């Protein structure tokens, strides 16, 4: 099993840390993982993306151009990454700020209104965990207890009291994600 994922959005959306939590969760499941951010002046202008690969075998390249799953959190990223999903793959997106919804017919498209939900729940900080919940629902690779362990590993000790809130957010994400096509 190898799952190749791109997560893309704005800088402030927690894209990188979401990826990191996924990777750490993979580690907890004894998987090989890699986490590869886009780097350099691409960052100017505020976009951020990260490639996460979870696999049972050694990962060859951390930089790839086609993905099993794309998690897309703004329009610019939609424009850039919709086409990179492998046929038969999955695209999960938050519709907030999306002006052109995804159109491909050869992939499974899911929508998760995480931003809206987060502001409803007054939990903007765990917006990315809601999205992660959506992913976990759609692709049952990462187990909740491992994700919690991953959170523990990736959050500094002083934030460990926030883990329950994160868990809650993940669960909420699992509930609100919906298939579009």
């Amino acid at each position, binding site marked *: 099993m190898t799952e190749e994922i791109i997560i893309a959005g*704005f800088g402030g959306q927690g894209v990188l840390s979401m990826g990191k939590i996924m990777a750490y969760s993979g580690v907890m499941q004894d998987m090989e993982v890699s986490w590869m951010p886009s780097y350099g002046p691409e960052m100017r*202008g*505020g976009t951020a993306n990260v490639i996460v690969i979870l696999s049972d075998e050694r990962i060859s390249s951390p930089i790839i151009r086609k993905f099993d799953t794309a998690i897309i959190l*703004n*329009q*610019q990223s939609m424009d850039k990454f919709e086409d990179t999903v492998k046929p038969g793959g999955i695209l999960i997106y938050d519709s907030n*700020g999306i*002006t052109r919804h995804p159109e491909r017919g050869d992939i499974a498209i899911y929508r998760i209104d995480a931003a809206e939900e987060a502001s409803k729940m007054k939990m903007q900080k765990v917006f990315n965990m809601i999205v992660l919940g959506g992913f976990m629902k759609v692709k049952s690779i990462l187990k909740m207890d491992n994700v919690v362990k991953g959170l523990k590993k990736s959050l500094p000790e002083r934030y460990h009291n926030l883990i329950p809130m994160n868990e809650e957010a993940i669960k909420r994400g699992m509930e609100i994600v919906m298939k579009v096509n």
Partner: protein
Amino acid sequence: MAKVKGAVVIDTEKCKGCEVCVVTCPTQTLALSHEVNGKGYNYSYSANPEACIGCANCAVVCPDGVITVYKMKVE
């Protein structure tokens, strides 16, 4: 007395919503919109167009050169 009236045209798609023009405007003409543009920025727009005196301060400080300013004397 001749009064000076101004107007600004903002290329909202290119605006990055930095708000520098907003705080520079001596007449509080400008504000950031609640909507975002294609790039995801809350762009600047003329919230009080009648207040504008065409001083061009906003355009002069705009890092992205997205503001054009017009001015005319009105009676």
